[in-house]
């Protein structure tokens, strides 16, 4: 279980995250929404410790995450897998090696220097790729894949980290609606089948409503909403998106998913979706 206690993070004059306290029970799928600059990315990067700690405590199963260093810190990063808007794959490595990077936290340094991974690791990578329908592309260079496929490689990488927690920073913001749906489906499935907590920054309301158990709204670094999707009223939305709200808050305008399409039917056919991409 992950607990954030009054965390604050400033960059110079900007308060990116302002006194945030949140509790994430295991197995939840949480969507974090808010305007650009609300501090969503910073929050996730604080949890994964890609950003240096500010004030406050981050506790995971009673370990203080903020003070971890060296090997412990790396082990923690491996435990809370991160997925990025721009996929952040190593372009010039093949898909398989990109997925194997997920095992880097437990691998010894010398074999990694020669890109040598154990048969166990390779098997895990193959299984993860198969789960995301990407096994045929395993030996292709990562930058030859479509955006949707690349994001699924990133999810496969996250999976073989055996994470307790997956942090996804706008995983679908660079994708077209079909691929966006497929990626969200994949995350939801992993969340439900593997009981992995997923915390997902989302630009759009409809994605958050469609896939998340719980929605956290942020504005100017603060948490201004925390509840289930059906308690996210129009007023709540306005408090999150502020004045820019009004017209913008029309859900269809904040949509990446093509809100009016039936979601599951299209998502069941990944190959078709990708062929169209």
């Amino acid at each position, binding site marked *: 279980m992950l607990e954030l206690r009054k965390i604050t993070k400033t960059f110079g004059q900007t308060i990116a995250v302002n006194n945030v306290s949140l509790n994430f029970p295991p197995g939840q799928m949480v969507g974090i929404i808010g305007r650009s600059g609300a501090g969503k990315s910073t929050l996730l990067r604080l949890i994964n410790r*890609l950003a240096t700690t500010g004030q406050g405590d981050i506790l995971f199963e009673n370990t203080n995450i903020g003070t971890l260093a060296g090997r412990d810190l790396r082990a923690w990063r491996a435990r809370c897998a991160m997925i990025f808007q721009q996929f952040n794959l190593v372009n*010039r490595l093949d898909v398989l090696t990109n997925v194997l990077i997920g095992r*880097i936290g437990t691998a010894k340094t010398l074999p990694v220097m020669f890109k040598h991974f154990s048969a166990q690791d390779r098997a895990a990578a193959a299984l993860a790729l198969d789960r995301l329908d990407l096994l045929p592309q395993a030996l292709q260079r990562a930058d030859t894949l479509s955006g949707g496929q690349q994001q699924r490689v990133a999810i496969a990488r996250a999976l073989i980290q055996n994470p307790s927690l997956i942090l996804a920073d706008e995983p679908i913001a660079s994708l077209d609606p079909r691929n966006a749906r497929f990626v969200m489906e994949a995350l939801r499935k992993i969340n439900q089948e593997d009981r992995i907590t997923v915390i997902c920054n989302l630009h759009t309301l409809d994605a958050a409503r469609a896939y998340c158990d719980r929605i956290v709204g942020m504005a100017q670094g603060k948490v201004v909403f925390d509840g289930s999707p059906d308690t996210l009223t129009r007023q709540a939305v306005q408090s999150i998106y502020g004045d820019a709200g009004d017209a913008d808050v029309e859900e269809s305008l904040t949509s990446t998913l093509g809100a009016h399409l039936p979601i599951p039917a299209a998502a069941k056919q990944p190959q078709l979706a990708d062929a169209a991409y």
Partner: protein
Amino acid sequence: MTTAISADRLKALQQAHPQVFTRPLAARLRDWGLWAACFALLGFGLWWINASPTRIWDGLGKLGFLVRFMWPPSDGGVFWEHAYAMMETLAMAFLGTVVAAVVALPLGFLGAKNVVPNWLFHFSLRRGFDTLRGIDSLVWALIFVSAVGMGPFAGVLAIAVSDVMVFSKLFAEAIENVERKQIEGVRSAGASPVQTLRLGVFPQVFPVMLSHLLYFFEGNVRSATILGIVGAGGIGLQLSDRIRINNWDEAAFIILMILVTVAVIDNLSRRIRTKLIDAAPQV
């Protein structure tokens, strides 16, 4: 279509913005001064080295004489000896370049700001690269021929030592230009700094390094022939021998051989380099 601007308007504009119409006197004087200084320097230089049309004319006469001796080029019956010497020169260039690149690899990583973010260290290392870069491979060859004796080994050392610093600097720059996102992806999975360099940085910079290596190999084939002349073996040694004993037809043959080899190498290497960026082997 442009409409003419009335004289009054023009005058007003000229008064309001004189700098649009004529450049300030100081700027014009400075430009003329610079040009005059350049020409003065050129004239002085020519006078200094006793350049004169008659000397050029005399020289041309002698040159024509030599060219007549050179024709027809002849391999002197020892073609394979020349070919072997040519191979020796190529090997010298290749080994020198590769050794330089291998030594420069760790130096490049150390010299990159994003790997060692200590500015003092960074600054002193880079200045070190720059300083040693000032010594040409020919100078190194003279030194190494004295130190380890005549022959290609001295040439390899000369090329390697003179290129290490340039490579280090170029590698460091390539490493500083890597894409941060890809590295962050590796780091977020729990990679140690060394692992991050290996799997996040190295694959990005490897094609750039390989391309630099090939480019330098091209240049080093040319330098290696010169290095032969000062005693580092290979085709250059053959050439200087022939010139010393006035065997101009054989000298001409060797020069042609060098020209052809250099052209072939340049061409191959350029083709490989252009393909490289897309189709680099995965590392």
